[in-house]
């Protein structure tokens, strides 16, 4: 044994016996203080509202990977941005159906939900005070949340957590030593009162409805405003046609807004949100389909039902491309009662879904499930109408199977298949929901 090996051996023995008391290299214990902030939001008809915000132990996802049209920010008490990230709108589900293995590509379907939950998980930020969600495309504030109550509540339970101790003045309440029971009552009362005030104040300011901003109605004013007539935006580049429809609608008690081009329609929608859009297809330079695309692209205008109006036959390509975006399709020449029936159907359907959703919420039916049924129900109704139009365009007798173009036949087959599957799924959902409704003594869904 050389001197060098002996020295080495001694070093190992010294290391193991002296530094490692258990005779082996003890694994170093690293306390885990990772925390996340969870912000739960509800998305409904283009508006975001805060559901809850809380802090819990746990690791955060990798925010750098996120991309999308929305920007989330964590701000400190001075309003300075301490953390930001991108995220997508929650209503967009992209579905892909496997087609024929012999060479067909995928078949797509989008689930454009009018309602969805959203959950944002971000790491604890030492000086965090609030959260904001904005639309990156136009900078509009969608919702904000006061994070102080959540942080203070957490620090009440975990006052010894190094981050709680370091939070300083705003969370002194939470960072205090545990209070002896004999004297705890006044402190608990003060704590509870303070927290209640903070939470109440937080809840009062967190929700900012973009709809209110778009319509110019100040927050809080909504309750004082009397119910107004349903508003219909009429869009047609033929001024005479606009006047005729306007006359129809105002006589029946609707409020109307008029636009004479696709661009004019989009400009109005930036300032005012109607209950329904009546949109002519054949317009120049932006036609009705292009206008429809733009309406459905914007999350604020997306939930507005659109009734297409045209003297031109619906083509199979148009039917295939736009069937999920439209709410109904009326052929010119217009008949007075046809317009009203279509408008009434759409607006009543919208109201039925809203009432049903409210009831579903009360009896504990899953919101996603109810919204899926509402969406399917709308799609089934629109698709059936489209199939009828493709099979027998206005003014023509119904085509026999051999007289149809291959494109029409293919699209009809495809929409029929989709409708059949949608009907099966809708029936299944309706059975499940009605079971709950029945058990709670609530009238069942009949649509």
């Amino acid at each position, binding site marked *: 044994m050389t001197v060098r090996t002996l020295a080495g051996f001694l070093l190992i023995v010294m290391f193991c016996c002296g530094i490692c008391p258990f005779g082996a290299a003890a694994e170093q214990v690293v306390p885990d203080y990772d925390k996340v902030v969870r912000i739960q939001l509800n998305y409904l008809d283009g508006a975001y509202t805060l559901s809850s915000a809380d802090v819990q132990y746990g690791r955060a996802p990798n925010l750098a*990977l996120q991309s*999308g049209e929305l920007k989330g920010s964590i701000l400190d008490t001075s309003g300075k941005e301490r953390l930001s990230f991108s995220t997508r709108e929650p209503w967009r589900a*992209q579905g*892909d159906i496997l087609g024929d293995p012999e060479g067909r*590509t995928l078949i797509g379907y989008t689930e454009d939900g009018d309602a969805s939950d959203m959950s944002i998980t971000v790491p604890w930020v030492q000086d965090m005070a609030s959260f904001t969600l904005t639309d990156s495309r136009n900078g509009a504030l969608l919702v904000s949340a006061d994070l102080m109550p959540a942080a203070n509540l957490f*620090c009440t339970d975990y006052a010894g*957590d190094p981050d709680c101790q370091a939070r300083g003045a705003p969370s002194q309440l939470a960072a205090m030593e545990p209070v*002896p029971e004999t004297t705890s009552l006044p*402190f608990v009362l003060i704590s509870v009162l303070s927290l209640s005030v903070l939470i109440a104040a937080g809840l009062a300011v967190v929700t900012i409805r973009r709809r209110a901003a778009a319509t110019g109605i100040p927050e809080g004013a909504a309750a004082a405003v009397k119910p107004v007539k349903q508003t219909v935006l009429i869009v047609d580049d033929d001024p005479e046609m606009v006047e005729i429809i306007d006359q129809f609608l105002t006589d029946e008690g609707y409020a109307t807004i008029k636009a004479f081009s696709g661009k004019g329609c989009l400009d109005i929608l930036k300032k005012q949100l109607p209950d329904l859009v009546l949109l002519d297809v054949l317009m120049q330079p932006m036609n009705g389909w292009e206008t429809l695309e733009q309406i459905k692209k914007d999350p604020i205008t997306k939930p507005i039902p659109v009734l297409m109006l045209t003297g031109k036959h619906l083509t199979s390509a148009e039917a295939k491309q736009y069937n999920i975006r439209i709410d109904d399709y009326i052929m010119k020449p217009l008949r007075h009662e046809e317009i009203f029936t279509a408008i009434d159907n759409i607006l009543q359907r919208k109201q039925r879904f809203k009432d049903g959703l409210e009831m579903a919420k009360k009896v504990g039916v899953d919101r996603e499930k109810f919204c899926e049924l509402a969406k399917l129900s709308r799609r089934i109704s629109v698709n059936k109408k489209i199939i009828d139009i493709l099979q027998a365009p206005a003014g023509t007798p119904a085509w026999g199977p051999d007289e149809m173009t291959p494109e029409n036949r293919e699209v009809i087959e495809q929409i029929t298949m989709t409708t059949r599957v949608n009907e099966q799924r809708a029936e299944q959902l309706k059975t499940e929901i009605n079971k709950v409704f029945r058990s709670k003594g609530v009238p069942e869904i009949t649509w």
Partner: protein
Amino acid sequence: MVVSLLALAWTVTAAEPGSLTVVVKDARTKAVVGGALVYLDGAYKGTTADSSGVITLDALKDGTHTVRVTKPDFREITKKIVYPHETTVSVEIARGALVLLNEEGEKKGAINVVFYPSSTSYSCTDHAKVSAPVYINNETRFREDVMKVIQSTYLNLDKVTPSKTPLPADYRDRFNFYYYYDPSAPADAFEGCAGTIPGNYWKDVTFADITVILYPKYYGAYSDAACQPTGCSQDYGPGRNLMKAPSDQLTLIQHETGHAMYDLVDTYCGNTYYYQNDPHANVWSSRENCESDARSDGRDPAQCRQIQQAAIGSSVSCSQPYWRWDPMPDIMASGYRGKFGEASTQRINYVLSKAVVS
């Protein structure tokens, strides 16, 4: 004044600090658990002894305290106690449902992918959702399918991307893979577009960049368009990014991962969602944008073409006002075969570059 008086009262009546004994046990076996990390009111106090599962916490003041216990592979637990009413507290911790699949351990900054089993599948014969308990009855089978999917898709990315646009040499090291297995709470792949997972998972797993609901192979064979074995992705916000796919359709899994992880857009023509996914888009809202990006990325602008599809024996049956560059067979257009093209791979590289592993 009131606050001062209350503070004085508190000082006068405060009891002398005492000690609390914490015993940690395994919830299932009831055996003592050593090496558990114990925190009092959020502050780390030490680990339980291997032999007894006990730790004694000193200098406790009277009042309510929070005891938190953590240990790798176990679910952390928090218990509230009132001292001195309780001087000994027994805490039972249960093994967690989250299983790490990386042999070399977790990597900080990596992309976290968590697989979740579905107890439902789809029947092409009945055109309906069917119960498929294979994963719920057999964890080994689920684990095997997950490993196969990981090896054939996430870790096989270099085989489905062009060599002209190489991936980072260490791209395989930029992922953490896990699965979550709780047979009492399976996912339902056919509830909603991307499926649903019971709420406890989201409480338990806060860090998932993508959660993949894997459902067993669908029943029957493709016969018509109403046979709907599907994939879907839906992003409910950071930490809640969900996708679903059948375990045997590897290209479809790549396709859905393209959406969920890399924000790639469909390049087939149909009822899907199109947008220009800047930066490093694979779909553009105009020919000019497509050509301009192609030129600046060293690709041939002449390959830019509108997203269209011809019907059988006819002219155009579907046309979208968006443009694509990647050649067919393109994974973002097909569910059965293909590769990610150069444009898609540039986007993939962009996302991978954000996963800085340490």
